[in-house]
């Protein structure tokens, strides 16, 4: 079991306590492609933050690759993030004054890998994304789809256990959305990368093999979607 969440609770206390997660139990195997769906305010982003060791939780247990992730120091958190998790963000979050290849290199910089090997690895991943020719370009010279592919290359370069994608198509048009989702699907199918996508778009969620529906801080249902036709053609969903 790669990811094991047991009875996770999280309360934000900004003057007035806000109980966001009310006991989440979830298991994800290595090599799965899972999407987490929910309306805004359902707690899906909080869940993603906890999965990504970006935030801590109040109650329960979270095991990632056999390690208990709880009350970590900043340094341990950073180390686990660096080695086990690759992030893909809605707004790409590339560093504007770095070229594509430098952005992809950055996680290895924080691992202390030397510049030459960093560059080689980054170029290999850019090639895989079909962006060899764009390696020297700055993010503002690229299209949204290209930026997101650079971000995916950056997420992959440390060979993480999981890729966490937060609304990866949120800032893309439908055509590029399909391309990016195809790319993630291919990574999952061909390279066996575990992928968790958080989204509120049914079309995006439908790419995954398993859909976790979250509502009001609880898991409403876990849908087996290996046939990939549940949400898009299903009922009570919102199409893009």
């Amino acid at each position, binding site marked *: 079991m790669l990811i094991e969440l047991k009875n996770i609770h999280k309360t934000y206390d900004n003057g007035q306590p806000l109980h966001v997660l009310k006991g989440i139990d979830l298991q994800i195997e290595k090599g799965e492609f899972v999407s987490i769906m929910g309306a805004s305010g359902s707690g899906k*982003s909080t869940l993603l*933050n906890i999965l*990504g060791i*970006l*935030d801590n939780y109040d109650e329960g247990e979270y095991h990632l690759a056999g390690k208990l992730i709880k009350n970590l120091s*900043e*340094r341990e958190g*950073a*180390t686990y*993030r*660096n*080695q086990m998790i690759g*992030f893909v*963000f*809605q*707004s790409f*979050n*590339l*560093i*504007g*004054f*770095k070229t594509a290849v*430098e952005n992809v290199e*950055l*996680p290895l*910089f*924080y*691992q*202390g890998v*030397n*510049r030459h090997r960093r560059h080689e690895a980054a170029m290999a991943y850019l090639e895989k994304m079909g962006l060899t020719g764009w390696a020297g370009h700055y993010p503002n010279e690229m299209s949204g789809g290209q930026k997101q592919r650079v971000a995916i290359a*950056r997420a992959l370069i*440390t060979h993480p256990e999981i890729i966490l994608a*937060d609304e990866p198509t949120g800032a893309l048009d439908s055509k590029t959305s399909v391309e990016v989702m195809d790319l993630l699907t291919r990574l999952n199918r061909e390279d066996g990368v575990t992928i968790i996508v958080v989204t509120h778009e049914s079309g995006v969620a439908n790419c995954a093999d398993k859909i976790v529906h979250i509502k009001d801080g609880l898991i409403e249902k876990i849908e087996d979607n290996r046939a990939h036709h549940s949400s898009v053609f299903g009922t009570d969903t919102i199409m893009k």
Partner: protein
Amino acid sequence: MRHRFDFDTLREIGDSLFRNKRRTILTGFGIFWGLFMLLFLVGGGAGLKQMLSANFEGFASNTIVLVSMNTSKPYKGMKEGRSWQLNRKDVERLKALMPELDVVAPIVSNWGQTAYHKGNTTSPGIKGIAGNYGQIEAPLIKYGRAISDADVEQERKVCVIGKRVYNELFPEGGDPCGEFIQVGSVFLQVIGVDFSSGNLSINGSAADAVMMPFSVAAKLYQRGNNVDLICVTGKKGVKMSSLEPRLRSIMSREHLFDPTDDQALLVLNTEQVFSIVDNLFRGVNFLIWLVGIGTLLAGAVGVSNIMMVTVRERTVEIGIRRAIGAVPRDILSQIIWESVVLTLSAGSAGIVFSVLILNVVEALTKHQAAFQISFWTAILAALLLSVLGVLAGLAPALRAMKVKPVDAMRDE
């Protein structure tokens, strides 16, 4: 994980500074200007001081000059307004009675003489001096030698001529020693040329003088035992102003004037003049450092301030770095190093610019004085800058450390 400082880190810092040029230049300008101002003022002040000090060059800074004047008070039945003269006995007397004195040098002067040599003429000031006069006003002997005690004792008809006198009597240059010049009605053999150029001098500047043994001058100008001035210096550590009452009382007893008659004996204390100039420059120096350091501090505060804003602006970037594996220490050291590199390079530019400008100033003043700052001043400034850089980076770095990786996820 990495926790060392190496070329890669430096590159990372360089990229972050170099690729945000406008931000970097705006931030660094305060430091650049502050350091430039500080060093320019320091160098300028030192040069100015040197230019002023050149006027006193070679002059013993602890000299008292005694001059006899008419009395201004009646004393022992004698009317006021009586004139009196210092004489050679006073010289011996002062030497005997005041062991605190180092040099006691009499001077006999005369003006209005013309000096000739091979058709060249000039109007020098005549100074009859003793062999110890060099300890009051140091000669800068270009050719030959200075007047010696033996010259005085044996009343040799010799002279040492000043720079201007030399230039006018010997326009063709060369060593004039052994040549005879005519001064008034007598011929004197030139034994030396004094090139000292100080402007503070007794009875005319050294450049305009023909100096001869005072025994010769006394005979030539019929002074008998009288002398015009007596210059004295104190031994090391003696405060000259404390000697003044003793000098007055000894002279008043000998020459029968009222000891309270301050006008009868003129006492010129160069120590006072020098201390006024010294104090002036101490004050100027203090101001220079105050203004310079103030400007520099303002620059550092500016760097800190702009970096503070920058950190806020870079929240997402820092969040991204944290999300993909930077530990807080990485962020802390990055911001501090950015600040240090920024202050150091902006400061170095300031150092270079001030050195350049000071060079121009030196050239414009025709190298009369050294305006240039010393190597060690520059090193000190650089060290000061590094410390300032760390301090300036501290507050922004601490704020940057508080940026959580979640902040990267927030959409702007």
